[in-house]
Structures are given as structure tokens and as C-alpha cells.
């Protein structure tokens, strides 16, 4: 009798069940939002495709910042590596779009391996400074290697072949947008699985207390490096998507500015949830689009004001705010 009473309460897993349901709802919402964007803004699909590419960058950054606790202001290196790799491959005759995405992903992962190996040597502030140094170096390298990258003029003349041999990358950017949306949804689902895996839990633990993780008998650096490579893979997909959709790769895709913007997006949306990365990108890009039309000179000021407001009013980011509204009982009603 006592045995029954004792084993009953824990055997089932209601907590994870609820989480799965929420994630299904979340993924459906992202897909629905994407499809709605397709029909609501048919003239702005190029902008929306760029939004998706940057959302992939922000997601990739969230893996490193939100799940591993590594501060970086150089994440555009991974994005730029994907963009340039896809661009250079395309100019050299490899025009199949999915192959280009794969090339971008692998290049991003490679860049993640290099950048992670260097950055994980340092901690805290030194690590942050290192990330800035790395992005500046890569930026300068891309600038100097103009024979391959087009230097400051950018790498132009990408003529991407039709998707599956059927769907041309048209002037309206429909194909690019839908390809991007599918990539985003697939990547998002994949990342949700990764952060919910034992490895994802381990990284969360490392973020909170690496000494505790070592005392559990797990190595810290190899696992962080692994996450860096995964992060590079995702950012590389974003970079390749940007290259394919705009048919140009500019130096800005491997810049400090893009890195900092990605971090701003992530903080706006909320770190460590994956949703925050997407929400933050939408807010940032939407804000940029609307405010820069009103006042093209001072829109960054407005972004600054918005950022301050969010950090003070909702330190968990906007998605954290949603979270609290979604489950009002969540805070007090747990017990």
C-alpha cells in the first residue's frame, strides 16, 4: 500500500507534456505568422526574407548566449562565413540553392569551430573583447581578399538556379521567402529538440555553474565547442539564405555592427527561449522599417530608447513578458 502511494506521484511527466504542447503551438504560430506575412506583405517579401535570415542569426546567437552563457559581439563571423561560402560557390558555378544552403551551413559550422576554439580560451570580459577582435579580423580579411569576396564592393552576380529545378528565384522574392520560411521552421524544430536533449540540459548547467558540472564528471569546454559548431551551422544557413535571396554578399554581413544588432534583437526578445530570438528580430526589423521611414537619421536612437524600456520593464525580454501573460498562475501558483 505504502509502495503504491510512493511510486504514484512521479512516474508520469506532466511538466514535459505541457512543454511539448506549448512548443507545438509555438511552431504552428511561427509558420502561420510566416504564411500570413506572405499574403499580407507581397511587396515586402525581400525584407521579410532578410528578417528570416537574421532570425536564424539571432537563434544561433541564442544557443551560445542563452544556453551556454558565452557573451559574444562577433557572431556575424558565422553568418558571414555562410554567406560568403554560398556566394563564392554560386559565382563559381554551383547554383543549386539547397546545395548552397548546405555549403553555407558547413562553412558556418567550420567558422564556429575556429571561433569557439579561440574564444573558449578566455572567460568573461576577455572573451567578449576576443569576439570583437575576431569579427574585426574576419571583416578585414574579407575586405582584403577582394579577388574572392569582391571586397568593399561586395560579391555580386550571384545567379541562383531554380529550386528543385522548377521554382525560379523571381523578382518578387516569393521562392526565396518560402524557402526561408521552411528553413526557419525546420531549424527551429531541430533546435527545440537539441535544447531539450541531455546535451541541451548539460549546456544549461554549464551556463549556471561550470564547477558543478565538472564535479558531476562532465567536461565543459568540449561541450561548449560543440554548441558553437551547431550555432555556426544555423548562422551559416542564415548567411546562405541572405546571399541567395539578395544575390549579393556585402561586407556588412561579417561586421561588428551586425553582431551587435543580433545581440540587441536577442535581448529585446529575451534570451534562452529560442522564441525570444524570433520575436526580437521581428521587433527590431519592424521598428527599423517603420521608424527609419519616419526619421531616417535617428532611428537608431529610437532603438536605443526601446532597448532601455524593454530592459527595465521586461528584463526577460518581450517573449518573457508573453510568458508571464500566458500563464498568470506560473509565478505564484507553482506550489
Amino acid at each position: 500500500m505504502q509502495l503504491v502511494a510512493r511510486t504514484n506521484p512521479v512516474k508520469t511527466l506532466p511538466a514535459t507534456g505541457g512543454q511539448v504542447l506549448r512548443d507545438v503551438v509555438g511552431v504552428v504560430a511561427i509558420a502561420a505568422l510566416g504564411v500570413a506575412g506572405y499574403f499580407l506583405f507581397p511587396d515586402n517579401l525581400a525584407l521579410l526574407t532578410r528578417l528570416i535570415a537574421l532570425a536564424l542569426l539571432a537563434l544561433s546567437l541564442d544557443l551560445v548566449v542563452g544556453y551556454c552563457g558565452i557573451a559574444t559581439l562577433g557572431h556575424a563571423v558565422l553568418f558571414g562565413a555562410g554567406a560568403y561560402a554560398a556566394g563564392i560557390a554560386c559565382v563559381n558555378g554551383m547554383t543549386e540553392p539547397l546545395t548552397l544552403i548546405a555549403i553555407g551551413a558547413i562553412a558556418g559550422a567550420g567558422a564556429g569551430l575556429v571561433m569557439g576554439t579561440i574564444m573558449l580560451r578566455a572567460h568573461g570580459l576577455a572573451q567578449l573583447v576576443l569576439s570583437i577582435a575576431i569579427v574585426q579580423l574576419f571583416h578585414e580579411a574579407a575586405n582584403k581578399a577582394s579577388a574572392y569576396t569582391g571586397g568593399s564592393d561586395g560579391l555580386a552576380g550571384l545567379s541562383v538556379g531554380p529550386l528543385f529545378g522548377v521554382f525560379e528565384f523571381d523578382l518578387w522574392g516569393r521562392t526565396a521567402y518560402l524557402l526561408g520560411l521552411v528553413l526557419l521552421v525546420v531549424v527551429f524544430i531541430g533546435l527545440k529538440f537539441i535544447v531539450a536533449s541531455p546535451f541541451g540540459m548539460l549546456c544549461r548547467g554549464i551556463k549556471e555553474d561550470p564547477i558543478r558540472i565538472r564535479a558531476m564528471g562532465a567536461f565543459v569546454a568540449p561541450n561548449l565547442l560543440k554548441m558553437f559548431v551547431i550555432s555556426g551551422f544555423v548562422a551559416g544557413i542564415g548567411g546562405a539564405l541572405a546571399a541567395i535571396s539578395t544575390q549579393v554578399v556585402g561586407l556588412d554581413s561579417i561586421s561588428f555592427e551586425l553582431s551587435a544588432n543580433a545581440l540587441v534583437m536577442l535581448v529585446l526578445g529575451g534570451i534562452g527561449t529560442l522564441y525570444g530570438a524570433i520575436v526580437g528580430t521581428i521587433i527590431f526589423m519592424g521598428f527599423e522599417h517603420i521608424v527609419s521611414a519616419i526619421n531616417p537619421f535617428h532611428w537608431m536612437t529610437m532603438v536605443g530608447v526601446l532597448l532601455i524600456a524593454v530592459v527595465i520593464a521586461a528584463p526577460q525580454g518581450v517573449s518573457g513578458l508573453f510568458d508571464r501573460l500566458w500563464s498568470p498562475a506560473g509565478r505564484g501558483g507553482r506550489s
Partner: protein
Amino acid sequence: MNGVFQVDNLSKAFGGLTVSRDISITMKEGARLALIGPNGAGKTTFVNLVTGQLRPDSGTILLGGENVTRLGSVRRVRKGLVRTFQVTRLFSDMTPEEHVTLTVLQREGRASRILSRFFNDSAVAGEVESLLDALGLLEVARRKVGEIAYGQQRLLEIAIALALKPRVLLLDEPAAGVPQSETPRIEQALERLPPSLAVLMIEHDMDLVFRFARHVVVLAAGEIIFEGLPAEVAANSKVREAYLGSYANARQHA
């Protein structure tokens, strides 16, 4: 049979300050050893030397007859030398269930897997449940650690250590910071530790030491000044001078 855990002539100095001098300890399977000493005696340094956070200047550490002196802390844990922390080191956003599950998965070499679910293995879940049950943590298994009582957090530290199936367990002040009302639960948990496990406990609470330990080592100024049965400790004049005097003072302040 030789000891499962043997420390020989361990020494460490920081600059001119010797914090550990020629420390030798042998523990057999099932040992219950308490390491006591006044503040600054070098107890925590000893734990850090033994677990690999610090490198000794000289001396050797043998675990099950194997020399682990040159190994890093992670490898020592994997060989069965496990510690708990004096100040709880837990992940405040995770539940006890998640802590122990992660530890069990890590012990089985599955904690770095990407293509697997965290809560999907019934064998792991069963082991986690019985561990939490043994330490009386089942009812808070699904609460965030930041929300449970400090005494329960201390018990979770022990649960995590046990989940690694250690051969030697170092408990760094398991009752530190725990309110009086909760110490009996810690004591109970210590009594129920696997009988074959060799346990070394560092503790300030003398009641706990006398009840738990079958063997006591007293450290003062980095040196072992006494080794013997708990009943003999109080009678030893060296110990009285070095330890109990200052301990009595410390107690007045607390």
C-alpha cells in the same frame, strides 16, 4: 586488502605559506572518516588537492590502487572520487529530478547526446526516483531548486554525488548552513549511505562527527595532529590545545 583511497605525504604551499604538510590518509571500503580542525587548518585545501582543483607540490593520491595524482578533476570524478560542496552549488532554475537525471545520464556517458530525449529512459527515471526517494526528496522532485528549503538542497547535493556511484565520497560540511531543525534529516541520509562506500566527511558540527565517524583525523595548520577513534579525540591534549579551545570560542560567537 589495501585501502580503496590512499593519500601519501601530500604537501602544498602557497608562496611561503605551507597549507598542507605531509598529509597521509588511508581509507578502506566502508570507511567513515571525519576530518576536523579549526578554521584555516587546511581542510578545504585538502579537499581541493584530493579532488584535483589544486595540484599538490608533492605526494601521491591513489584511488583503488591507481595513481590519480596527475589526473584532472573530471577524470577523478569518473573514476569514482566524488565530492559535495560546502556551499551548495546547484542550478536554481532546474528541478531536483533534472539534476539527478543529468547526473545519471552523465555517468552513463549519455549527457552529451543531441539525438536523444532528456526524460525518455525508464531505467534512468527509475534510478532517479529511487535516489530521490532515498533522500526524501520525492515530494519536491518537480520544484525548482531555488524554491526548496536549504536542508533539501543539501540533501540534493548528496543525491547528485550518489548518482555518480562513487567509490569514495568527500562530504564538505554536509550540514553547513542547515537550520537545527533540519539536521536530523541530513544525519539520517548520512546513516543510509551505501555501507561499502568509503566516506570522508569534513564537518564543524561535533555532534554530527561523533555520531557519524568511526575514525577521526584532526588537522591543524596543515598537519595531521591526531588520528584515532572519536572517543579519544577529546582526551588528546594536542587536540584540545589546537582545536577544541578555538572551537569552544567559535561556538560562543555563533
